[in-house]
């Protein structure tokens, strides 16, 4: 770009200078837009800090208050003593972790089978599973609910409404996960798999000793993807739980919106308490998070 002929050097340098000042003005504008959207993205979540530390009265006071006049801790106190917030948080952890772990196990196993093993009807079966790739929870919500209620009787209460297995298992099925794992395993050099077979390893040993250690990145990405999806899940937990023993955060917080009176300070406090840990985790593993979300969409 900077190759200048001797003769018309002066003109070109002037042109270059003018266009560079134009360019810096443009980049300042684009910077401003990005900053604006950063504020829009982060601002609302930051603002929640203020109502979390104010009592209900000050929330609706006039003239409005922007910042707490005193550090009111009543909302947090209420949340920790009068509600089952801690229980909900634990349940969310159990639910999201449970779904993630089971999904990772069944998806990597099935992904391996589809990527590396030969069996009759493989293509048909994979096509069938792929066909359900996009089936939303909402569309099978009602029959799934019904099924889990029936399972209650059939499994003697092991899998049912208001049980963790009943809450977790239906969410573990994700054709997308199998697809992602299969794609990843197919990118591993087939020679490794063949070398291990020659070396006498069984499919199980190849899977655990050779394939699994090489799949770490894919497992982290899928794990974050599933965890994020389930930790935010409202619809299924709302349907599958009726008691605080199995209720998760999303459902619990939505029950804080009372039928008649809602204590908004408490809701703000609950939201804040929920966002802080996930934000910390996110900031530590941001690269993986970003990769997981984009991978989920792009790799389909």
């Amino acid at each position, binding site marked *: 770009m900077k190759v200048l002929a001797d003769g018309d050097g002066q003109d070109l340098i002037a042109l270059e200078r003018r266009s560079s000042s134009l360019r810096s003005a443009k980049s300042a504008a684009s910077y401003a837009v990005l900053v604006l959207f950063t504020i829009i993205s982060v601002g609302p979540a930051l603002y929640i800090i203020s109502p979390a530390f104010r009592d209900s009265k000050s929330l609706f006071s006039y003239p409005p208050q922007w910042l707490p006049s005193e550090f009111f801790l009543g909302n947090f106190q209420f949340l920790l003593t009068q509600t089952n917030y801690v229980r909900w948080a634990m349940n969310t952890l159990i639910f999201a972790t449970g779904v993630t772990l089971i999904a990772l196990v069944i998806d990597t196993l099935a992904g391996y089978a589809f990527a590396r093993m030969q069996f009759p009807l493989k293509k048909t079966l994979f096509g069938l599973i792929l066909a359900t790739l996009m089936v939303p929870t909402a569309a099978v919500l009602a029959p799934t609910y019904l099924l889990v209620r029936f399972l209650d009787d059939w499994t003697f209460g092991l899998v049912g409404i208001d049980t963790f297995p009943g809450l977790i298992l239906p969410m573990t099925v994700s054709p997308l996960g199998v697809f992602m794992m299969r794609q990843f395993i197919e990118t591993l050099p087939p020679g490794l798999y063949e*070398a291990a077979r020659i070396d006498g390893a069984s499919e199980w040993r190849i899977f655990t000793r050779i394939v699994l250690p090489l799949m770490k990145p894919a497992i982290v990405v899928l794990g974050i993807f599933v965890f994020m999806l389930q930790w935010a899940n409202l619809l299924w937990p709302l349907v599958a739980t009726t008691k605080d023993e199995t209720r998760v955060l999303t459902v619990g917080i939505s029950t804080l919106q009372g039928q008649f009176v809602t204590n908004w300070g408490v809701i703000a406090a609950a939201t804040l308490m929920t966002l802080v840990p996930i934000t910390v985790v996110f900031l530590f593993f941001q690269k993986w998070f970003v990769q997981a979300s984009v991978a989920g969409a792009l790799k389909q």
Partner: protein
Amino acid sequence: MAEVIIRQLTKSFGENTVVKSVSLKVADGEFLVLLGPSGCGKSTILRLIAGLEEATSGEILINGKIVNFVSPVNRNAAFVFQNYALYPHMSVRKNIAFPLATAGMPKPAIDEAVQDAARILELSDLLERLPSQLSGGQRQRVALARAIVRKPAVFLMDEPLSNLDAQLRQQTRLELMDLHRRLGITTIYVTHDQIEAMTMGQRIAILKDGELQQVAPPLEAYDQPANIFVARFMGAPPMNLIPVSVSGSEPTWSATTQGGSIDFDLKSVGITQAAIGAHMSESLQIGIRPEHLSLGAVGTGLSGKVRFIEPTGSDTFVTVQVGEKNVVVRCGVNETAKIGESVGLAVNPAKMHLFSADGWNLRTK
């Protein structure tokens, strides 16, 4: 220690048949090279023997036992992959130990076996490294160590040198031959490089389009090629082919080309009277290697015009146009020729081959 026999081995992938009824017998302790251009089915044969693919038909015997339906490990054959296929997350030690650990060998015995294999392949100082920390040649040796540590009956090598640079390749070639001499394990070695095949193989099996063309010791394959394909594939520059028409009768025959004719007697070119009688009316070709031609004055043997001169240092290759064909002659460096000059070509009839229209050598051994 094992003999490997394959009988009428055929392998198809869907419509595509890549190995066509190949039969081959490899003696115990022999070093056999499977040679051919890419896509000729040589790697597939190796993978069939190893058990990485299932044969469509035919039988594979290792040590007298049919192993078609035996899992790879129980065939007792070790495989060295073209790109080595080292487990990237394991140290050299763990890589070499993997087959033994899989077999459930006790740890002290594994350690000893790994030490032995590492010593043979001069890897003792590298045992704790990861494959990514090794050079190409070292990786190759790790792959070999992993193969020999099991004390296999058969070694199967799939172009193990093709990822090395030229100098390292030559050195490793010698090391491999030395290894074979010391261990005496039956080895089947796949390559597309005819120099490798010539220098390493005790016998060479040449394949084309999934069909076996010739199985012979290297020099025999070079001197007595079964057909035009083998004749052209072995040797660089390849054998010259010139269309001829053959006439004459006992005891003197002559092959006439556009650039003159060559007189020969059947005995010196190894052809029976019956064979020549059957093929005389076809469009035959003579084949003659560059080193069996020499430049001479116009009027000797064939004649033509010099087109190119390529000195390589040790030899000079002169391309002469005879009729419509370019014929390459290997000359000494001191021989002089000028481009455009008309020259004569002296042919050594005893080294001449006569190929039938369908490409087979009419010479009987």
